């Protein structure tokens, strides 16, 4: 190859690359999305978060017209996957699932040294809500949350409870109860909800903090949502029983790295809520044991920040105890 052709070759390669880049930028602005979207699930495959994300991804492919690749990046209670999401290019082609309050405890625990904070993401949609329920065995003397709170106060440091891990929603709710009742509980940390519920059913703990799927055969005292759940209309909330501070819901939503172009964020929010609000999607989710509770757009952004601030004092309390 002589000098001339080499130069021509180089120039044309550069110009083609340049044109391609311009073209893709132009397309991204006008017709996002035009290629596959990667969805990071920061938990392992087969869990509740994964299930919900995959259901939604399936339906979104049709709405957005591109394929969505769900990628599990588990580890350190979702810290690894969230770090990867926070560091991704904010172009709308990498999005991810996030769980609250797991997300908040990672940011708020100093020893976690999280490489992201609540401002590192643009929030797309709140998708699934998993409320906590306080329940006891059917033969328990407690018939209301007030009975329980009174007894906990009278016998400080004696009632035993199990969590599914440090700083899980169960643990945070137990810390809330301690504050509300001005008491101490014996809190033991187990590995997952199945283990902690086995302790309860084996009679080794006194009160169960659990999710609706574990309620069979138990006497529920209060649900920790702000309003009664349509699916469980008979369980009174803690709020209506006079304990407005006792609210703990584990929510799963979707976010993108902060700095998404406005039109891209709007397109994503629009597509997600369109899909999540269809009855077909909600039925499929319900069949997998997931309650879809859509919190859309700016409302979700506000919700995430509100939950984050609510978790702050509880995480601080837990950190002091260690």
């Amino acid at each position, binding site marked *: 190859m002589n000098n001339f052709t080499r130069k021509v070759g180089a120039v044309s390669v550069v110009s083609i690359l340049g044109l391609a880049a311009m073209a893709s930028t132009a397309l991204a602005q006008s017709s996002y999305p035009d290629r596959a979207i990667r969805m990071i699930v920061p938990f392992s495959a087969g869990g509740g978060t994964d299930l919900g994300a995959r259901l939604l991804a399936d339906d979104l492919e049709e709405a957005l017209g591109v394929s969505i690749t769900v990628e599990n990046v588990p580890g350190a209670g979702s810290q690894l996957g969230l770090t990867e999401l926070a560091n991704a290019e904010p172009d709308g082609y990498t999005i991810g699932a996030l769980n609250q309050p797991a997300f908040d405890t990672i940011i708020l625990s100093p020893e976690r040294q999280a490489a992201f904070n609540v401002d590192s993401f643009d929030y797309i949609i709140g998708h699934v809500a998993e409320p906590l329920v306080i329940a006891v065995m059917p033969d328990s003397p407690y018939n209301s949350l007030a009975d329980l709170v009174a007894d906990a106060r009278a016998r400080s440091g004696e009632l*035993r409870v*199990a969590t599914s891990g440090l700083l899980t929603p169960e643990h945070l709710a137990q810390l809330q109860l301690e504050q509300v009742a001005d008491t101490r509980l014996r809190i*033991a*940390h*187990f590995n997952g909800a199945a283990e902690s519920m*086995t*302790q309860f059913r*084996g009679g080794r703990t006194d009160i169960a903090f659990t999710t609706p799927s574990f309620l069979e055969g138990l006497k529920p005292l209060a649900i920790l949502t702000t309003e009664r759940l349509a699916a469980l209309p008979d369980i009174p909330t803690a709020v209506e029983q006079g304990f407005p501070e006792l609210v703990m819901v584990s929510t799963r939503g979707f976010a993108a790295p902060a700095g998404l172009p406005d039109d891209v964020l709007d397109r994503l929010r629009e597509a997600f809520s369109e899909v999540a609000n269809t009855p077909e999607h909600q039925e499929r989710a319900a069949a997998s044991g997931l309650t879809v509770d859509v919190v859309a757009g700016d409302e979700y952004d506000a919700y995430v920040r509100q939950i984050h601030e609510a978790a702050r004092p509880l995480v601080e309390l837990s950190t002091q105890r260690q």
Partner: protein
Amino acid sequence: MDSAFSFWMAGIAEAMQPTNLLFAIIGCTIGTLVGVLPGLGPAAAMAILIPFTYDLGPVPAIVMLSSIYFGTQYGGTITSVLVNVPGESTSVVTCLDGHPMAKSGRAGAALGIAAIGSLFAGIAGTLILMVLALPLSSLALRFGPVETFALLIVGLTLVMSFRGGSLIAAMAMTIVGLMLALIGLDPVQGAPRYTFGNSSLFDGVELVAVIMGLFGVAELLLSLEERQAKPITSELTSLFPRKEERKDAAAAIVRGTGVGFALGLIPGMAGIVPTFMAYALERRLSRHPERFGKGAIEGVATAEAANNAHAQASMVPLLTLGIPGTATLAVLMGAFMINGITPGPFLFMDHPETVWAVIGSFIVGNVVLFVLNFPLVRIWVQVLRIPPNYLRVAILVFCMLGTYTLRQNIFDVMIMIAFGVLGYVFKKVNWPTVPLVIALILGPMLERSLRQSLELSDGAFSVFLTTPIAAGLLAFSGVILIVSIVATARPAKNIPTTQPSSNP
């Protein structure tokens, strides 16, 4: 019983699925190969192969690894009979009569009866395991952290005291294992301990790397000191024993199965003990005890039945209590845990499909092994002709590659090499490595259950004495400890205290 029966059937059906069947066959083949090759034990082989099972899913992975375990029991017989070198420690007893039989031209009959005895013991053992598993695991709900802690203490005590050799050394190694288990993020609060700022240590010392080093690399180093196996001297004629031999052997097989299974239920009991005891029992019952050691077929039959029944029975404490009694079972337990399944009282409740498929595969595996070892025994004999140095290089490469692929972390490879050298040194000074590995595996559970117990009791240690099951278990481990101290002071003469590394 109805539901139990449907579990069994579902398990066997699952084990017969093409994928699971394929991995059972692969595992049996590898196991037999490992059994034939002296100097490479089942623990090492399984440790080396764990990284290659990561993407298989729990059932195929565990089916393959447990098939290796049973396969080595079969394969070890071949070298015992033909070369008078036990391929596995449990085959030592098989040498006693198997090799004399081969010398007098009865090698075929010896291998034949060994395969038949192993098949019977394997199937019978699995059936007893099936019957025992559910009642034992129904204790699960009664097991809280307090009982779990006491049970783990029993497990560690048993492992320490059954190894033979120095009790002090075994205790020291257990403590070293527990100390190693402390490395990494603490299991409850996530605070880093003994990591020296090295993030590779946050998840603890990589268990598979330690196992590969202690069993794989260390054995390799040891085998360099051994002389090459003697050439095969016997011809293989018919594998079917003569009529009168069959009659003698049948009763021996049944008795061997009984002894092997009963002793195999005790966690930490090395396979050599029931095998030797079954052999001694057979000699005592025989009308011609003088034939033993000179080619008595009952000796081969009972030894093989006993070691295979022991292998099945040793699964009972692993699956139902989560106590791995031996190095091989420790590796198998590691394989369970890598797949997110913790053996123990909750196994049958939380993962019934997986565990019953694994148990079903034991039946399938034994049949596969019988086929591999009965008609195809001549092929395995050829393996003995491979120069050992080629094998050693291949094994070392496998160890390195396997460890690296765990997390693509070169640090793990260095851990493996370090523990390989350590393992070699430990063998040389006769310090047992099995208690170290088992303590390393059980350590995090021990710590978690201790902390949970104390969280629930508000810090009162008395909870271990006021909970009946826990108090009973702790008293039991005290008794074991005292008995083994007394036994160490007056060593028994008739139980071999050999402690080969590959002891399954």
